[in-house]
C-alpha cells in the first residue's frame, strides 16, 4: 500500500473529493496546513507595522491505497487540483507497511 499525500489549494478540496469518488476512492484524511514555496505570500499591516506573511493556507490530503490504485489517485488529483498557476501544490507518495481498521482489526488492503 501507498500513502498518497497531496498538498492542494483549499478551494480545490471539494472538486478533488468528488473526482476521487467518481473513480471509486472514498477514504481520506484531510488537514489544514500552511505552505511555503514559490507562490508569493502577502503583506499584512497592523498599525503601520508591516509583516510579510510568506505562508499560504493549503490543504493536505492523505489517502492510503493499494498499490494498484496509486496511479488512478495521482491522475485524478493532478486533473482536479489543477489551476495552472503557481501554488497548485504537490503530491508525494510514501510506502505504507501496514494498515489496520480499528473497528474490525482487519489488516492490509481490506483495511482501507
Amino acid at each position, binding site marked *: 500500500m501507498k500513502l498518497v499525500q497531496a498538498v492542494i489549494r483549499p478551494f480545490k478540496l471539494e472538486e478533488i473529493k468528488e473526482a476521487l469518488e467518481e473513480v471509486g476512492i472514498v477514504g481520506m484524511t484531510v488537514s489544514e496546513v500552511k505552505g511555503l514555496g514559490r507562490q508569493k505570500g*502577502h503583506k499584512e499591516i497592523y498599525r503601520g507595522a508591516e509583516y510579510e506573511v510568506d505562508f499560504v493556507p493549503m490543504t493536505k490530503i492523505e489517502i492510503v491505497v493499494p498499490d494498484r490504485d496509486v496511479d488512478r489517485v495521482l491522475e485524478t488529483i493532478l486533473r482536479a487540483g489543477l489551476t495552472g498557476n503557481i501554488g497548485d501544490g504537490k503530491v508525494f507518495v510514501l510506502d505504507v507497511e501496514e494498515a489496520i481498521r480499528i473497528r474490525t482489526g482487519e489488516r492490509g488492503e481490506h483495511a482501507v
Partner: protein
Amino acid sequence: MTRPRPRLRASRSAAGRGAPAPEHAALRGRRAGTPATERPAPGGPARGPGAALRRAALAGALLTSLPPAAAAQELSSGDTAWVLTCTALVLLMTAPGLALFYGGLVRRKNVLGTLMQSFVTLALVSVQWTLIGYTLAFAPGGPFVGSLEWIGLAGVGAAPNADYAPTIPHQAFASFQAMFAVITPALIAGAFAERMRFPAFLAFVLLWSTLVYDPLAHMVWGLGGFLRERGALDFAGGTVVHVSSGVAALAAALVIGRRHGYGHEPMQPHSLPLTVLGAGLLWFGWFGFNAGSALGAGGVAANALLTTNTAAAAAALAWMIAEWIGRGRPTLLGAASGAVAGLVAITPACGYVGVSAALAIGAVAGLLCAWAVSAKTRLGYDDALDAFGIHGVGGTWGALATGIFASTAVNPAGADGLLRGGAGLLRAQLEAVAFTWIFAFLLTFAILKVLDRVLGLRVPPEHEQEGLDVTQHSESAYAP
C-alpha cells in the same frame, strides 16, 4: 431655522404620556385649538396635503400668546435623556451590531472586509450627514429634497426644532437621525458581501446616501416632503430604511453578480456566535430605533418598545418553526434571522399598533422572510447575506401591515387601518412602498452601473479566492 413654526406636542401629550384625565386633554385641546391627533415627528405625517402647515400655523399663532418661559419649559430632560440614549443604541446597531451579524455569516477570509463595510459606513455617513446629509433630508425645502439651509449643521443648535421634536435639542434630533442615515447603506452591504472592491464601496455609500437616502428621508419625514403629505405612516423607518435598503440590495445583487463558486463551494457562516451576538445587539438597539422614534419618553415610546419586542419574538419563533417543519430542524440562525425580520416588519408600525397586531405582524414576517430567503436559491441571484430577503421583504410587509393594523385607539396621532375600516391608509402605504421600490431600485442600479464603469465594482477572481481581508485591507481576522 428661518421660519420658526412651533407646534404643540399634542400627540405625545395625549397618547404618549399615558391617558390623562379628560379635563387635562380638553385643556390642551383648547390651548392648541386643534384636536390632539398630530404627531410632530417622523412617523407621523399629517394626513392630507397642507394639513401640517395649517395646523402648525394655528398652533404657532396660539403659542405666541403664551409667555416665552412656558414655551421654553417644553424642553424636557426626560425626553432628551431618552433620545440621546436611543441615539447610542442605534449607533450600536451598525457597529458592532450589524457588523458582527454580517461578519459572522461570511467566510473566514472575508470577515474584516465585511466588518469594515459597516464600520466605515458609520464613519463616512456620520461626516456626510453633518456636512450635507442632514440639510438635504430635513431642512425646509421642496417636495423631494431639503434646502441647503442647514449645511454643515448651520443653525442646528441646542434649541429644539419645534417642527420635528419640540422637547429635545435640535442637535439631539439631528444626531438620532444621523444613526438612521448610517445604518441604511450598511444594510445594503449584505447583498454584495465577499466580492466588492473597497474603493467602489466607499463611493457607493457616499452617492447612495446623498442621492437616495437623504431625498427619501425628506420625502417621507421632511417638512414639505411629498410622501409625508400623502398620508402614509412610517413610524420608525420601515420605508425609508428597510424597504429602500432591501430593494437597493436586490439591485446590487443583480448588478454585481454571484460570488465565485456560489452553489458549488461550501459557504457556511464562519462564526455563528458572532452572528448571534450581532442579532442580540440589533434587537437591543432596535428598542432605540423604534421606541426612540417617539422622540420622547412616554406612552408611545412604551407601546413601540413593547410591540417591537413582541414582533421580534413572534417572528423568531415563526421562522424557527417554519424551518422545523420544512427542513426538519429548528436552527439558531433561523431564529436569529426571524428576530431581525420581525424587527424590520414592526418598524413602520410599532407606534401605531397594539400588541396583538405585533404578534401577527411578527409571525407573518418570520414566515414570509423564511420563504423569501429560500426562494432566492431558485431565482438564482446571490443576495449573499439576504439583505433583500429580510429587509426588502420584511420592510414591505411591515409597511403594508401598518395599513392593515394601525389604530387610532393605540395612537390618536396615527390613522385607522383596514381592520378598522380605513382603506385609505392601506392605499397610501401601497403608494409609498411602490414609490420607494421604484425610486430605490432605479437609482441604485444607475449608481452601481456608473461606478462599475468608472471604478470597477468587483475584485478580480484571484482576490475573491484569496479573500477580501488580505487583498483589500492587508489584514487577517485571526492569527495564532
